[in-house]
């Protein structure tokens, strides 16, 4: 019954008028950026970080979390109506959702996505409430060797997600780790790779790198491509799915939720992996696989439920271990650190109102999202028709203000521009920026834990495989790498990404 008491405590925090307001602002903003193509949750949260300085930690976290899972909802609207993923995790929704829209069934597709996501969100909230406390208990026993191996697993999982060559993805992770090292070495106080630039002595800010790699680089790429969109704004039709739709979608939602909740917990996982996984599962299990890609409702229901569940359970590693599983979680950690809270297993015991308040607010936020998305769908569709030439200067203004305000130093903006160029080149060379960002976040943490582990083991590297928990993580990483490298799986993975390219 402890969970029940904890949840009551959480809801007490979450339903206070102020926190309700921040949850509402968060999910509104999240839906907005999810709907607008060309700007994702990472850039938005990075832009809003400075704003959270003035908020209480719980309000800040509630708002930022709302943006993240709100973006999953909004992204599916764009995917269904415009065949453009507003957000990377909704890529698979394009496949069948857009086809449904072309057949005049945009309404049921949108409703299925929203209801499926809501159900998944409720379940995932419960999963966090049940799974997080025991995990935090275990995490308290983790030593540096376990932390290091867990981060290795996280980085490997990130490379599995990347497009194309596995070797290139691993190289990008290493690139990120190296960039993360820039700055003052904590152990010796030596300035590393700062080249006498005083601004670099604190390292390169994560927000700056993320804005460059995901923000400006994306705008540049979009501008090169030009604008072509086909919007089904004329009529969405009736919203409610038919009884037949309902019968077909329901099992898919259940499976998607289960898969998403599980994959979200893995570091490096989260929404993207979940939605791809769920689509594959649905296609495999379906009695009519030939309908997939031609408007099968399961192909909308499963991935939509999965990406929302995954987005929420990806909070588990962040809340219990203090390890960011993806770029958004790294920003959440940044927000907590700004507030003077070191994320980790101790947060749950020391700040129960923060922990349980956040969890309860996720359920509240999900309820808001259904209200925002179904009756107000017309408003979001209007937004879809805003041309990109109005959007991108606005995005640039907000990004530049956000980066500049980090330390009131133009140098940060310069670094953002440089990373924008680097991100552009990487995309052109088919090197994924996402694994690099994760490496960048984990670089300093990994080095510190490696050093401590080696100190404790007196320089014996076998410590990582003789400790059982650590060995488990290492074995899991090796298995994951082998699986991805196997020719049969490689083919499947390539197919999944080919499907993505058809957007």
């Amino acid at each position: 019954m402890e969970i029940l008491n904890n949840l009551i405590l959480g809801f007490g925090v979450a339903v206070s008028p102020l926190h309700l307001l921040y949850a509402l602002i968060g999910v509104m903003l999240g839906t907005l950026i999810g709907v607008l193509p060309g700007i994702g949750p990472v850039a938005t949260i990075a832009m809003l970080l400075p704003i959270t300085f003035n908020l209480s930690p719980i309000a800040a976290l509630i708002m930022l979390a709302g943006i993240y899972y709100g973006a999953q909802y909004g992204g599916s609207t764009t995917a269904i109506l415009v065949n453009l993923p507003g957000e990377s995790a909704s890529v698979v929704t394009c496949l069948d959702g857009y086809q449904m829209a072309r057949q005049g069934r945009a309404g049921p597709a949108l409703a299925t996505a929203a209801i499926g996501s809501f159900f998944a969100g409720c379940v995932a909230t419960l999963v966090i409430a049940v799974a997080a406390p025991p995990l935090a208990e275990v995490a308290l026993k983790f030593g540096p060797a376990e932390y290091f191996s867990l981060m290795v697993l996280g980085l490997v999982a990130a490379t599995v997600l990347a497009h194309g060559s596995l070797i290139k993805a691993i190289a990008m992770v290493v690139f990120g780790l190296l960039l993360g090292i820039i700055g003052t070495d904590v152990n010796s106080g030596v300035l590393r790779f700062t080249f006498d630039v005083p601004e670099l002595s604190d390292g390169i800010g994560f927000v700056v790198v993320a804005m460059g790699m995901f923000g400006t680089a994306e705008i540049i790429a979009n501008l090169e491509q030009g604008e072509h969109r086909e919007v089904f704004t004329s009529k969405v039709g009736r919203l409610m799915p038919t009884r037949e739709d309902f019968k077909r979608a329901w099992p898919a939602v259940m499976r998607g939720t289960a898969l998403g909740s599980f994959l979200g917990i893995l570091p490096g996982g989260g929404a993207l992996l979940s939605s791809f996984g769920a689509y594959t599962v649905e296609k495999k299990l379906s009695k009519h696989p030939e309908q997939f890609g031609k408007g099968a409702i399961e192909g909308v229901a499963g991935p939509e439920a999965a990406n929302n569940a995954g987005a929420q359970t990806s909070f588990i590693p962040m809340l219990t271990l203090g390890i960011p599983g993806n770029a958004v979680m790294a920003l959440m950690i940044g927000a907590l650190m700004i507030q003077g809270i070191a994320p980790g297993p101790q947060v749950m015991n020391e700040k129960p109102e923060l922990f349980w308040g956040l969890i309860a607010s996720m359920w509240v936020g999900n309820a808001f999202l259904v209200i925002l998305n179904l009756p107000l769908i017309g408003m979001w569709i209007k937004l879809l028709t805003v041309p990109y030439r109005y959007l991108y200067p606005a995005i640039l203004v907000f990004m530049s203000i956000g980066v500049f305000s980090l330390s009131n130093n133009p140098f940060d903006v310069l670094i953002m521009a440089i990373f924008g160029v680097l991100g552009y080149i990487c995309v052109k060379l088919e090197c994924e920026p996402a694994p690099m960002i994760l490496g960048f976040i984990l670089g300093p943490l990994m080095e510190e834990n490696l050093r401590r582990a080696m100190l404790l083991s007196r320089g014996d590297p076998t410590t990582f495989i003789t400790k059982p928990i650590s060995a488990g993580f290492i074995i899991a990483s090796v298995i994951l790498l082998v699986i991805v490298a196997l020719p049969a799986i490689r083919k499947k993975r390539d197919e999944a990404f080919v499907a993505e390219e058809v957007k």
Partner: protein
Amino acid sequence: MAARIKAPKDFWAGLMFISVGAFFMIWALTHYQMGTAVRMGPAYFPAMLGGLMVFLGVLVLIESLAMEGAPIAMPFNIVHLISAVLIYAALGWIFSRLGIGGDYAILLGTVALVVLSVMFLPLTKPLVLISAACVIYGYLMKPLGLVLATLLLVFISAFAGHEFKWKEVAILFLVLIVFSILVFVKGLTLPFPICPAFMETCPIR
């Protein structure tokens, strides 16, 4: 030795990984202490990673000679990139000789680079103008204030697009600046100067 580059994307990615990895490894080994496995010095981790990256880069490079891949669709090549970096560095050196401060040297260098790229490589317009707009915004914020910096950012970036209509961009600018002042300066009390530093009194308060 008639190895042909079959996959240019992988080839250049491999070269990038090798050069970045080698740079980090060599720089770490020559500038910082290595230490031992028990007590790792500041050079240990970066040197290891740099070595790993070179190894991975070599693998990618070998693969690019063996397997076919798609061509690169980029509006500039490695020579342009290196010349741009060299020009930037040379201009920085010249400006510092002339006694122009670091911030203004960066600004002038950026403007020169924009002019050169748009003249010689017109297809790089989005890349160069978007990046430069951000840099100019950042470095002019303190001397010129939020209003003028935003004006420049909006107009330069709008110029990078396909269509440019004065009226539209002007309205967009007005909306954005009003929003910025209300939300960021008034609402969130971010310490941005609204007006240029040379104006003694600011009409917008």
